[in-house]
């Protein structure tokens, strides 16, 4: 057996990484095609405020991150639906607003330390057994939602007006998409980090889109790219002692550049 798998923490990192690697592009696909890529980054920053609250209140930060980002997804969707603010500005508002809140709470909690660094850039050594359980259970919930509501999610992403004319509850489906994104982002923070989760959600999807195939094919390809990025990234992180989030995203970037070059040549 490889040395890397002799450590329990590495096995946990791989298990959590694979769960995230599947779920991130599944949600990412629906965000990217709606021109909503910034949503992932916004929710990541909201999750960071959640982490800060967790550290301040001395509860498991993964719980407070999930709670706050799901709550924020309600706020984002209701502000967007009110049409008083542009959709993009709503995201900017939540992104910088929650970062400000996070920084203030962390100052109060004197939380600027190495532990914080692991939340920003991801760390393979910090996934506890409790974290792993939460990550896997929630990843399964997100996965099943996308599988069972695939046709509704596809239709509302492709043409919300036609979807509404066909009788679909478009607002509810949009809210659900953002809530699922909130969960996917919050559970990914341990491995990929706040600052890089947006990249894992978006880059495998845009790489897969380079091949100019249909939705289902692109979705499957983006999951393959994402899993490859996570697995190779975790190996690199262990053997080269790199922050896992950075290593994963760099692999995803290499796949993107390769896809871009390959499609241009053909």
């Amino acid at each position: 057996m490889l040395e890397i798998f002799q450590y329990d923490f590495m096995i946990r990192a791989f298990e959590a990484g694979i769960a995230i690697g599947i779920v991130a592009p599944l949600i990412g696909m629906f965000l990217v095609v709606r021109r909503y890529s910034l949503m992932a980054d916004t929710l990541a920053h909201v999750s960071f405020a959640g982490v800060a609250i967790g550290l301040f209140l001395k509860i498991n930060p993964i719980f407070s991150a999930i709670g706050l980002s799901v709550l924020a997804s309600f706020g984002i969707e209701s502000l967007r639906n009110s049409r008083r603010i542009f959709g993009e500005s709503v995201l900017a508002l939540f992104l910088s607003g929650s970062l400000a809140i996070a920084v203030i709470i962390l100052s109060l909690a004197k939380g600027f330390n190495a532990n914080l660094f692991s939340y920003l850039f991801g760390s393979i050594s910090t996934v506890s057994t409790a974290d792993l359980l939460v990550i896997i259970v929630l990843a399964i919930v997100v996965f099943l939602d996308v599988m069972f509501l695939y046709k509704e999610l596809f239709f509302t992403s492709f043409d919300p007006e036609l979807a509404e004319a066909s009788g679909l509850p478009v607002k509810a489906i949009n809210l659900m998409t953002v809530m699922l994104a909130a969960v996917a982002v919050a559970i990914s923070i341990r491995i990929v980090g706040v600052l890089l989760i947006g990249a894992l959600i978006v880059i495998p999807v845009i790489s897969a889109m380079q091949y100019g195939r249909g939705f289902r094919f692109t979705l499957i390809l983006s999951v393959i790219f994402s899993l490859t990025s996570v697995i190779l990234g975790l190996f690199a992180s262990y053997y080269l002692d790199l922050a896992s989030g950075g290593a994963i995203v760099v692999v995803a970037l290499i796949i993107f550049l390769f896809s871009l070059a390959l499609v241009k040549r053909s």
Partner: protein
Amino acid sequence: MPLEEPYIELDNVSFSYDDTPVIENLTFTVRKGEYLGIIGPNGGGKTTLIKVILGLLHQTEGRVVLFGKDRHDFKEKHRIGYVPQRVTQTDKEFPATVFEVVKTGRIARLGFFERFTKKDIDAVERAMEISGVAKYRDTLVGNLSGGERQRVFIARALASEPDVLILDEPTVGVDIGAQKTFYDFLSSLNRDQHLTIIFISHDVDAVSQETKTVLCLNHNLVCHGLPHDLLNEHVLERLYGKHSKLLTHKDTPN
């Protein structure tokens, strides 16, 4: 001759954005087998009228009855196929094949969590065949021309096996040569597939040539009846203002 079954009935329907009336006191009936053209100036309320019928906007006054049921209680959304105006400008980057898009036409017939059955796929294949897009089955919609994309959206609407097909400005973005073929195709759907068709157009000549009945809308109902009885300069003046003159396509230079 007994009148055909009423499919769409509007009774004194008005719609206002804030306090600005867009359509006022519209009363008319669309019956089974009709081929109705709706004409009127830009901003005259044509698209708003369609959106009110579809339930995308809610009328501020009056009543909409679809297939004998009040629109609020009307659940059989699949009976009305809708082709919106902007299909020729849809997101070209969206990674969806023709088959994937046409399949969304069946969703109105399925419940949540329900999967497509063989019957659904057969209906999708048939709709693609009738609309002449079966050969593009696995092509990305974004890679098609305006006219081809138009047909994909018609196939999408036909896939639900509707009783009424509503098209909003279907020939915008379709070149002149393809327009004739397109109108022939609509006529054949009305004649051979017994589909009731409503289409909005700014092209008065096309409406007068192609449709069986015409409805002229400029916030109010200006006229409703047979095209040849109605499309005279008096009506056009009420629709489009003074100095309007009806030219046929033959009169216009290429």
